[in-house]
């Protein structure tokens, strides 16, 4: 696949459509030569980023779309997930399973943690409507190819 290619996807703000972005990211990563393990990591990270954008960024508003921009270069795949919310001003926190199982912490709220744990870079940017995004990067490990 030619380095420097990009793919743009626009998702309705409805849960379930994150799987479209997930499949697109997986196809692009496979074309670039990523391993199956890394593609699975990417799929979960992209799905979680899109779910956050659909649910929290766009508040499930059907008149808004979530933008997904996938850009390849020689050694990495970058995925930006863009929504119309104000952006996330929080750091990913590792879930405390003890507190969750004791009912002291919401069982949900693991998306940001999973994103950060599964990709090589994850950044959350705040901006005006249509400009807030999360940026994910996975890097090709030449030795494992």
């Amino acid at each position, binding site marked *: 696949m030619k380095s420097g290619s990009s793919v743009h996807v626009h998702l309705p703000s409805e*849960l*379930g459509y994150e799987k479209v972005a997930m499949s697109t990211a997986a196809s692009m990563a496979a074309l670039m030569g990523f391993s199956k393990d890394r593609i*699975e990591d990417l799929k*979960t990270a992209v799905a979680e980023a899109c779910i956050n954008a659909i649910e929290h960024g766009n508040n499930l508003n059907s008149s808004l779309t979530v933008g997904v921009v996938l850009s390849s270069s020689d050694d990495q795949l970058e995925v930006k997930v863009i929504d119309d919310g104000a952006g996330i001003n929080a750091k990913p926190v590792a*879930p405390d*399973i003890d507190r969750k*199982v004791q009912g002291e912490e919401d069982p949900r709220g*693991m998306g940001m943690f999973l994103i950060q744990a599964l990709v090589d870079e994850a950044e959350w940017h705040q901006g005006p409507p249509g400009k807030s995004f999360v940026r994910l990067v996975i890097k090709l490990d030449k030795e494992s190819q």
Partner: protein
Amino acid sequence: MQAQTKVTQRTAASASGNRVNVLAFSGDISSTSKEAILGAYHGLDGGSSRVLLDFTGVDYINSSGIAIIIQMLLEASKTGARTIAIFGLSPHFRKVFTMVGINKYAALHVNEAAALASL
């Protein structure tokens, strides 16, 4: 738009002869799975304290789906009477479940035979 979750229930015998309730999932496990999964769990009879979750037929799990499994562990912990074990996860989701810490409360096994040997 979200795919449905199907849950089927059966019973099995552990290696030590104990009765085990098996809940087998298929489809997606996401926010819309709550009623199917917790409803099936609540419907289990009280005759067995051992519950085995079979993920063999599951293609997609997201964090909302994982939260439903944690909710089940919370309920099992509150009643203090049920042991839950898991098998059939893909290597990726075994990793994700371990990252989240679910393996601390529900042992993750590679297949049903290994799970039944432990219960």
